[in-house]
């Protein structure tokens, strides 16, 4: 097996003394091109996990390595998308997607010179997710699903190696959600980055991921690691097969046990 890309080793984080540990003793290895999902009850520390993985926070104890080196600050190889698309309303969709390129080096330094190239890259990404023709529209002119698609494009424009998604489809209706699952699945297959998907929706986790981790309630610990042995590429139809439903059911039972006091 290739060397772990991101390696959590007994990582614990407490935001401050008073509130106690948000997550505790988390040991987890992420390999390149892997797609993992983290599910768990509300407040179990999933967002904390994201903050650690992106380098926004340092662990209180334990070791956290990225590409073999200790994480000392925000990793520039990361792209993030959240439940709220949070696109900037004064920028067009395309300008929103290009925002990371104005910040991350080396793109930032070459911005004036490579402007056209970047615009083309942004437009290509938008085309991949089906937003062709909406480049010059403003965020309020797009539906919720479209905004999320743009948000994911923004997370990918600087070619990150790691994509962190924090319940990105939670505020969308069921059909749009399934559509975006397929969009994400195809993007991942094409660009081959690593994904950490945090979600409440078990079907989403099992459909998309190679491995699903179940976290306990606060302080969050990894309770279960379930490898999803469904063949790829996966069609939406697979979500109605017995095997799929069995896996979801299993995870559901695990979470049910965690939620009971």
């Amino acid at each position: 097996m290739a060397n772990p890309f991101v390696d959590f080793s007994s990582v614990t984080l407490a935001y401050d003394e008073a509130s106690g540990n948000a997550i505790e003793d988390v040991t987890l290895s992420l390999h390149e091109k892997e797609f993992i999902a983290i599910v768990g009850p509300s407040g179990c520390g999933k967002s904390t996990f994201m903050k650690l993985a992106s380098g926004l926070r340092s662990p209180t104890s334990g070791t956290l390595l990225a590409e073999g080196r200790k994480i000392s600050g925000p990793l520039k190889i990361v792209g993030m998308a959240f439940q709220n698309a949070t696109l900037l309303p004064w920028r067009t969709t395309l300008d929103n997607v290009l925002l990371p390129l104005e910040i991350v080096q080396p793109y930032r330094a070459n911005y004036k010179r490579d402007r056209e190239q970047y615009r083309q890259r942004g437009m290509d990404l938008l085309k991949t997710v089906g937003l062709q023709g909406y480049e010059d529209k403003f965020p309020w002119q797009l539906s919720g699903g479209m905004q999320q698609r743009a948000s994911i494009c923004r997370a990918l424009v600087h070619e990150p190696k790691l994509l962190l998604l924090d319940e990105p489809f939670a505020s969308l209706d069921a059909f749009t959600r399934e559509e975006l699952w397929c969009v994400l699945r195809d993007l991942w297959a094409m660009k081959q980055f690593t994904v950490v998907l945090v979600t409440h929706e078990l079907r989403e986790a099992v459909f998309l991921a190679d491995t699903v981790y179940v976290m306990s309630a606060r302080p969050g610990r990894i309770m279960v690691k379930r490898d999803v042995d469904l063949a790829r590429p996966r069609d939406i139809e697979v979500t109605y097969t017995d095997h799929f439903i069995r896996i979801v059911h299993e995870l559901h039972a695990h979470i049910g046990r965690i939620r009971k006091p």
Partner: protein
Amino acid sequence: MAAKKKRIDTWAPWMALSAMIAIWQLVCTAFDISDFIFPGPWAIAQSLFQYWGPIQGHALQTFWTTMAGFSIGIAVGLLLGFLIGSSRFMYNALYPLMIGFNAIPKAAFVPILVVWFGVGTLPAILTAFLICFFPIVVNVATGLATLEPELEDVLRALGASRLDVLRKVGLPRSLPYFFASLKVSITLAFVGTVLSETVASNNGIGYLMMSAGSQMRMPLVFAGLIVISAMAMVMYELFAVLERRTTGWATRGMDTQF
């Protein structure tokens, strides 16, 4: 049908104004109210026409004084607003002081300013500035402080510095708040100027009103009042238009008319 409705909408305020003037004149004539107490619109109009020369001179004086005070107010307001809105520490340190300062009636400042700077234009400019900068500070600070944490996370994870986030997101986001505060601020600035001119100046509409009042020339006093009101309204509308032009995205095409 829609065009007719729009025309009615545009004419509505003018109709209301005409109605008010008509009723005003009617009341004054019917009850034979003396000009010394409550002049009617006709008497005021006559006064405006008769003294147009001096009124114009004083009006310009008030206008430029107000603009000067307002400009200082914008500069200081932006600076302080930026400082307070961008740093938790600064917010905690300065905000209570600002509120305390703002609670002081600015009329109380005028005698102090006169002692320091003498009578005339300078205390008027400073009074205008002191009254008008606070709303700008508050609005800019609010605009900056309401930055969504998730957005900040997205940018920080890319390696953006605090300044980057403020520049790319904080400031543009504050613009609607800033322009909204300008509308309020300009009218306050006029108040400040006139206040100072009333007690400590030989120039300006404030002085004109004070002087005319002491000579019992009430129509002239009211004329002065109307001139200030007209100036303030024009400036208010100017900033309202500016706001709509530059921050259309904030109201998403809705029609905010206040």
